[in-house]
Every structure is written in C-alpha cells, then in structure tokens.
C-alpha cells in the first residue's frame, strides 16, 4: 500500500520525538498523523502521509522543479525554432 498524500500540518502535540503527533489538513479534511519521522517539520509545513505516518516534508523548492523542467524544454524548443 503506497497510497500517501500531501497535507498541511495545522497543529502539533507531544514532546517526545517518537510520539509527536500532528493534526494534518488534507484539502479541508483533518486527520492525525505521527510526526516521529519528520522531526524537522513544524506547523505550516506540508508532509506526505502514509498509514497514519508523515514520511517526508514536502520541499517546496523541489516541488516547483517539475514546472521549471517544462519551462526549460519550452524555451529550448522556442530557441530552436528561432534558430532554424
């Protein structure tokens, strides 16, 4: 089961790093997830959640790279068209 979806941390409870829990907002739905594996994540961060556990913090800069990649392709394509 690799179904994991991104959500925003709205609040955090618990001091013990291994049992830190977060209330995650998935597009308007709140569900709790364990934050033990993302000690660096805080309120406002987006995390990828699977089976009740946050497995990674979404890197917002990296997230844009898919679109930058496309932009580069487009620009290269336009350059080639201009050139020829």
């Amino acid at each position, binding site marked *: 089961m690799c179904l994991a979806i991104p959500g925003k941390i709205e609040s955090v409870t618990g001091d013990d790093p*291994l049992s830190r829990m977060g209330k995650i907002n998935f597009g308007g739905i709140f569900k709790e997830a364990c934050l033990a594996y993302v000690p660096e994540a805080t309120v406002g961060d987006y995390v990828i959640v699977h*089976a*009740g556990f946050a*497995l990674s913090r979404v890197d917002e800069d990296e*997230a844009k790279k898919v679109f930058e990649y*496309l932009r580069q*392709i487009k620009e290269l394509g336009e350059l080639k068209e201009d050139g020829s």
Partner: protein
Amino acid sequence: MKFLDEYRDAGLAEQFARELHRVTTRPWKIMEVCGGQTHAIVKFGIDELLPKQIELIHGPGCPVCVTPLEMIDKALEIAARPGVVFTSFGDMLRVPGSATDLLSVKANGGDVRIVYSPLDAVKLAEQNPAKEVVFFGVGFETTAPATAMAVYQAAQKKLANFSMLISHVLVPPAIEALMSSPNCQVQGFLAAGHVCTVMGFEEYLPLAKKYRVPIVVTGFEPLDILQGVLMTVRQLESGRAGVENQYSRSVCREGNRPAQELIKRIFKIVPRKWRGIGEIPQSGLGLRAEFAAFDAEKKFGVAETRVEESSECMSGLVLQGQIKPHECPAFGVKCAPEHPLGAPMVSGEGACAAYYRYRRQPGAVATK
C-alpha cells in the same frame, strides 16, 4: 489539493507528451514498479499520451498482490479464532486464500476490522485487554516505518495482547530478480517514489550499473510519471544508465534516516516468498528475536499448510510484466473483483484491478 492537483494539468501533460514524441527514436520498454503508479497510468490514460514506441510494463509493486498464499491462509486461520480481533488494511479483505478470504471470515462471525494505520490496532489492543489483537503487516518499505513504530509502542506499553503477522517485502531484490531472469525485456525503471521516500535511492546505484538500466525515482501524479518517463527515455536514447530523482519534492538520496533506524531496530532481513514469483532471497522483513513476543506466527503457532493456487490465475506473469491483465483469458470473465482468482484483481494497487476498473474492454481508450 495542494501538491497534488497541480500535477494533473492537461496542458502541461501535453507538453511532456510533445517532448517525448520529439526525443523518442526507438522502441523502449519501461517498467513502473509501484502499483500506485500503474493505477495512475491506467486511470488518467497516461500511456495513451506516449509515443507508440514506448511500452509501459507493469511491475510487481503491489504488496497485497505478492503476499504469499501461505501467509494469507495463516491470516485466515488466526482471524477465525474466537477472542481474536484481526485488523488489516482494507485491500486484504477480498484477497483469495486457498479456500476463503477475510471478508468471508468476517461474514461468518470473525472479528475482522479494517484500520487505516497500525497504530489504530495498538489502540484497539489497549482498549480491549481481554482480546488478542493481531495486525496484518503487509507492505513495502513505505509501510515498514508504520509497522515498526506499532511494534515499538506496543513494546513500550508492554502490551501482552498485541501481535503482528508480518509480510513486508523489499523492492531492490525484486528488481534484481526480475533483471536476472532470462525473459526480462525491461530496459528502464520508474522506481517507487514513496518506497524511496523512506529508503532513499542509494540501493539502486549498483543495480543500474550492473544491469545497465536507467532507474528514475518517480512520483504518482500524471506530470510526475510523464517526467519520469521522459528522464528515462533521455537516458536510453543517449546510452546512459544511471539513477535520477524525479520525485525530489519528497525523496532525497539518503532517504528518511529516523525511519530507517527504527526499521533496522525492529526488523531483520529475511528470505520471502512472493506470490506468483517464488522465493527471492533477502527480500523480506521479519521481527528481530527481541520482539518475538509480537510475532503472530509464533504466538498462534500456525502451521505451514499446503497451498493451492488457482491453476487459471496468471497473476505471476502479470506481476513480472510478461503479460498485460487483459491478455489473461480469465480476465473479466472468470476473474473479476467480486470473484477474483488472484490478488491483483482486488488490490487497490493491483494491475488487474486497474485494468478492470478503467479499461475493461480492449481498445477501451478512444483515440483523440
């Protein structure tokens, strides 16, 4: 939903498709490892956007599908015992064992419950001290951090009534087994993005080198898969064979260290039988001796039983990418989600289920 919907943009998908058409000059066979990726491909019709030379082969990345039949039968035996609360992820309920399935056990009075997280099972154990709570721990490396934490917490809380039936499998050994098979025609891989979120992608470097196949760690949304395919094709077209990371918003090279540490603490690597494929050495996770008290197989002393697979089920060939689901004669006829012959027809990540749901008839995707 942020970080989800923007990766489903039709215009941008079209741009990726155009670039793929531009750079592809030869036929290529690429395998997407994860069942979640298979579902996205079939649901959104991503393969229809690709140039005809690219064939996507569906891989064995469905942990429910590859759970050995013996394990399913053990689960069924335990679930039928009085005093047991058997908890599992939803997909497992309809997976056929030798004679029955969990849903039927439930219908016959077994206390079988679907949970969203293994921690829910731990909570159930705490709330029901008089019952034996068992969790069916099925999954790839993506799920191992969750099950590891459940065992860890159960141990902390000294729960005597909680145990787990573990059937975790690991991806790199499966890729190795596939690549070393003489029938293998796969030339490039889209590695599973969430597995690599946990494990990183260092393990794939030696595989890419040994078999000279490009491996691109890929996400699950249409733009992710299209970019993953494009990155793979670019390598193939230029004769390169390395590991790249498309899903960098979630995956980094070393992966999730705290998760890996807890997995190592709770589990050890064991040989594992993959349903439809056979035993792959060092391809599974089992509980370390220190946590043997939480091993449901030991606790309930379920014996190894003789297992009988349906002779008509071709799921092994589907899982290895040798055939597509609709090429199986039983597809949609004798085998359907309500009466499956094998696991891939009922798992949320099974290739057969994806085809049944989104592409029942041949030519079911109309050309634009």
